[in-house]
């Protein structure tokens, strides 16, 4: 028992160390990366926030949404319209985008949350299709399928002149996403976050324990909408353009693939999913048009062998290696035990 406590502590500190390394790597990335890979990284960071917000619904609460692009697009159009028509600067525009996402969730929540499972999926899908239709047909306001070009990229004032505009924008994105992810972390670690997991596992028991499950779902739906709209706003700035594609259910489907591929219900898994999908898209598509086939194969393989997502890959490898090693071999035992107890420790960390 004493030993286990030690392991927990060392596991935690090594994880903190890795987080620090990742943060430093992200901070210094512009110094080593040319503009193009940096723009891919920027997109990965933005999509990470988007899929993490979807993961709140899909992974933590067990609400399979196929309409999360509704918020992504709402944020995008809010930012684009405010930046182009009202020349609003980034901070108020992003705040309005988040509020727009929250408002949309406030309005649609009572309808979609009457259902769960496949019905929830279909209702959220319809929601995003309705918005898609409005945007497509309201050409005077939204530009229809041509979209709205000319969204100016925000810059950090104290960095302008010091670094290039893409690097500067990358830091804007990193800053906003870091703040958002920190609050998300706090949300999922709070008792509220644990209630979500409870709802996913068995809503009736949680309800029986006296938790207001409907309100909990409503609130998480609103939160996910806000975070999704924030990511959508950043994405509009990133592209300098917003079009109905950002609202399309295909975008929502892709985000769902990212979440499931990376590991639904794990905090960092969706980030991994977004990274893999976007790198496949941009790297593989430059030498074959069949990148979607390759993505499909990766997805099938992941579902077959890593049903809980790529985030579980190291654990799987460890399991397989532990299985392959006969427990009777005395010399190996201490190491195997250490590995096993780390795994237990990590599980209990959750």
């Amino acid at each position: 028992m004493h030993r286990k406590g030690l392991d927990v502590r060392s596991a935690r500190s090594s994880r903190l160390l890795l987080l620090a390394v990742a943060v430093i790597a992200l901070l210094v990335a512009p110094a080593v990366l040319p503009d193009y890979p940096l723009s891919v990284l920027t997109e990965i960071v933005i999509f990470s926030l988007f899929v993490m917000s979807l993961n709140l619904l899909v992974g933590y609460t067990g609400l399979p949404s196929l309409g999360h692009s509704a918020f992504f697009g709402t944020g995008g159009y809010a930012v684009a319209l405010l930046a182009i028509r009202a020349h609003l600067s980034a901070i108020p525009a992003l705040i309005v985008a988040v509020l727009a996402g929250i408002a949309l969730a406030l309005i649609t929540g009572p309808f979609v949350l009457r259902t769960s499972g496949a019905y929830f999926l279909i209702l959220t899908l319809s929601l995003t299709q309705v918005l898609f239709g409005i945007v497509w047909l309201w050409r005077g306001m939204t530009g229809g399928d041509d979209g709205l070009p000319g969204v100016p990229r925000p810059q950090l004032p104290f960095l302008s002149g010091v670094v290039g505009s893409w690097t500067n924008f990358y830091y804007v994105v990193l800053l906003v996403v870091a703040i958002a992810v920190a609050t998300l972390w706090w949300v999922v670690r709070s008792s509220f976050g644990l209630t979500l997991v409870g709802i996913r596992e068995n809503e009736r028991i949680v309800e029986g324990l006296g938790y207001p499950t409907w309100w909990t779902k409503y609130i998480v739906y609103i939160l996910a909408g806000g975070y999704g709209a924030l990511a959508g706003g950043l994405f509009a700035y990133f592209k300098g353009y917003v079009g109905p594609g950002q609202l399309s259910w295909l975008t929502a489907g892709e985000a769902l693939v990212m979440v499931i591929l990376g590991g639904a219900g794990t905090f960092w898994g969706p980030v991994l999913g977004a990274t893999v999908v976007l790198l496949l898209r941009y790297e593989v598509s430059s030498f074959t048009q069949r990148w979607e086939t390759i993505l499909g194969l990766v997805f099938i393989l992941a579902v077959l062998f890593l049903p809980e997502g790529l985030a579980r890959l190291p654990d799987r490898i460890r399991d397989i290696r532990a299985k392959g090693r006969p427990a009777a071999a005395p010399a190996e035992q201490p190491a195997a035990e250490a590995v096993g107890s780390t795994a237990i420790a990590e599980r209990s960390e959750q």
Partner: protein
Amino acid sequence: MQHESQPLMNHRLSRRSMLLGLGTTVLGGLLAACGGGESEETPAAAAETPTQAAAAQTPTTAAASPTAAASPTAGTPSASSSSGEPVRVGVIGTISGVYSTLGQNMVDGMKLYLSEIQNQAGGRPIELIVEDSAGDPDQALAKARQLVERDQVHLIAGVTLSNEAAAVRDYIVEAQVPWIIGNAGLPGLTRDPNMRSPYIFRVSFANGQYEAPFGDYAYNTLGYKRVVVTALDYSAGHDKAGAFSQRFQQAGGEIVGEVYAPMDTQDYGPYLQRIQQMDADAVWAFYSGGDAVRFVLQYTEFGLKDQFPLIGAGDTVDENILNQQGDAALDVVSTLHYSPLYDSPENKAFVEAFQSTYNAQANQFAYQGYLAARVIAEALNATDGNVEDKQAFLEALKGVHFTGPTGEFRFHPESQGPVITVLVRRVEKLPDGSYGNVVIDAIGNVDDLSF
């Protein structure tokens, strides 16, 4: 508090391994991205022989992709002087998806012209780097970024769809890369003073450019007084129908109805029924691709063709789909800036070369690609290949003029869009049994600020 809920959490996440994996993936991927950028400096440019161009009509555009160029046989990077270094032209086209033929034909047209000049102009080899935008504005933008930042292209040519063009416009102008639009008809790109730019040239058309003169023609020459317009319900459809309607009304005609159908409509019955109830002399239609096939076939099956003659934009009876429409398309009168049956020695040579290289009939998209490549080559010749001097090169582009397949080609000095000859064409059965758009009239010198 956290530990109380352990039984509920059966998703075991090891953040350490997670981060490790994440870090490796991100860095590995990005390093691969840098690596790709460096390796494509290899001088595989000159390899655009006709045979390779022919091979490139297979779905993969490997012949032109940087990865293929970086194959070991291609040799080592040469640090040559700017005069011998290839001019890299990034081509963005919709090569997969519903609109794949549009992008592929355009790329084929470009390659055809380049093979005619041995991939050389102004004393420098020309290297095409083709990227597929898949009809997706986001992907078009990512590809533009990749071409400019990673492949360091000197020029960008192509872009198939209007929304793709809208998405990449700001980026390309900001990056100050001359851009020769090979298809996208988004009118603002050359017509709107706030959107056009010294860096943007268009060899194709602005939506409405060949539809507007048809408004006059339909009223004055064809003698129609009352017309129904019908089009695909998206921006280009509204732009084109709007341009036709406006000029038709100015000429004195009346638009008795407008019917818009969503893209990918399978059954046009409801829309045709609405048209049937109207009292008109003719129906003007804009449809494209599979929608055009279905619309024209169902229009004829519905018996509407006996009631109202069908006229429209050239896309409705494009050469790509004409043989699928067959007899149903007979006698449809349409306008376009191109027809493979236009009678000129330049056009004959182009159509024959295209036929022998790709075993397919040339069409407007191939023609536009051909023009785009020619414009680039002419400007390179005028500047002795010094594409690095951007201002001089832009001036040279502006001044490009030559006799192309449909007569003199030049840019309008203000809009930098093309001055086109609008061809009035009628679908007829040709002696060899195939169908073709026979040119029955031509309206010369139509620029994109004239409507």
